């Protein structure tokens, strides 16, 4: 397989991943396996590139003060443990299972995107005692109105364990699993959408690092594949976030829904056929 081809695939995956907010892995891994890369190697190399894309975008969000560091620090304990467990499962499991699981996660993401509610947010009125103890109230500057919005995150006692699950998915399949994390921030913890996406980005860095360390010691990270993937995905993601501003959300969403649906079905079919 030529380096130019991998570079191109990684670039497109990074571009689509950033524009849809789903991350590069969900496109990268299925396409790499179609090109003949073993699924475990594809997963391992993807999670390394996730460190680059999430850290790159998190760096800007954190400096704009959109991220809640305390929420991130609390939740990443759970995602980190989840990712270690997930990656350890992948190392020993059969490829067939991985194809099926990956297909299912793609279809669930498809459903989440399809049914996603409008970006509405109503502040949490009552914070539970545990979240208060964790000091999860904070503020962020809202660019649209130019005002500082105060908010309190709640139900951390439920958000934490759920984040363990999101970490398992991330480590198992080599993706950031940002969609799951954002869902937990939004629906369970009542965080404003801006804060929830940007905080998820910061957490993904540590989740991906935990997964990477497992794959590295299992010898699954192929440097020959890693080089073009890291470069392609990162440059693609960088451009994707800039193009996003000029495109309508609806157009991006439609294209991405098609891609996600096709890849999801295709992965499941390959899993059923024996995982090759």
């Amino acid at each position, binding site marked *: 397989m*030529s*380096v*130019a081809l991998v570079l191109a695939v990684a670039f497109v995956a990074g571009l689509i991943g950033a524009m849809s907010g789903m991350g590069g892995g969900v496109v990268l891994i299925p396409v790499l396996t179609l090109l003949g890369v073993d699924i475990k190697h594809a997963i391992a190399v993807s999670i*390394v590139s996730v*460190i*680059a894309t999430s*850290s*790159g975008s*998190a*760096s*800007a*969000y*954190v*400096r704009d*003060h959109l*991220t809640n*560091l*305390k929420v991130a*620090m*609390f939740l*990443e*304990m759970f995602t*980190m*443990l989840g990712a*270690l467990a997930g990656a350890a499962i992948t190392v020993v499991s059969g490829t067939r299972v991985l194809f099926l699981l990956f297909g299912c996660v793609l279809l669930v993401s498809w459903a989440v995107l399809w049914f996603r509610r409008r970006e509405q947010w109503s502040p949490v009125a009552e914070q539970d005692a545990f979240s208060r*103890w*964790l000091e999860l*109230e*904070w*503020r962020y500057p809202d660019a649209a109105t130019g005002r500082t919005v*105060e908010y*309190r995150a709640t139900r951390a006692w439920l958000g934490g364990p759920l984040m363990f699950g999101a970490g398992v998915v991330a480590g198992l399949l080599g993706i950031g699993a940002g969609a799951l994390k954002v869902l937990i921030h939004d629906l369970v913890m009542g965080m404003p959408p801006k804060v929830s996406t940007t905080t998820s980005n*910061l957490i993904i*860095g*540590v989740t*991906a*690092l*935990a997964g*990477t*360390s*497992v794959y*590295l*010691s*299992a*010898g699954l*990270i*192929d*440097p*020959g594949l*890693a*080089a*073009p993937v*890291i*470069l392609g995905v*990162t440059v693609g993601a960088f451009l994707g976030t800039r193009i996003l501003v000029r495109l309508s959300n609806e157009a991006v969403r439609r294209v991405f829904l098609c891609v996600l649906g096709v890849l999801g079905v295709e992965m499941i079919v390959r899993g059923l056929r024996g995982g090759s």
Partner: protein
Amino acid sequence: MAVRDADVTERERMDVVVGSILLAGVLVSLTLVAAGVAWHWMREGNPRFDYTLAGTTVFQFLVADVRALADGELRPRLLLNLGIAVLVLTPYLRVLASVVYFAVVEHDLKYTLFTGFVLATLTYTLLR
């Protein structure tokens, strides 16, 4: 809701520190990887690296790289290895900075323990 202005300034300063670590880490890593690929391409006429990282830990990997660098064995492969190592260590350094911030600046025992737990676990997995 009681968000005090004194807390805000400290934490906003921390935001800048964390953001800068992440940005610097990613930029340095990408530069090393790109330089490694370009150099390999010029030398071998093919941009594809062909070697394996068989079952190593991040720290062993880093130590071997730094030793090779000290011996003056600068090779394209070394640049790529260093690029991957810098990338992997970027979130790690961010966690390390958070522990220091919560322990030294905020004197916040709770969050020092939380970030300390993450740091200890990551250190263990990176050394194992």
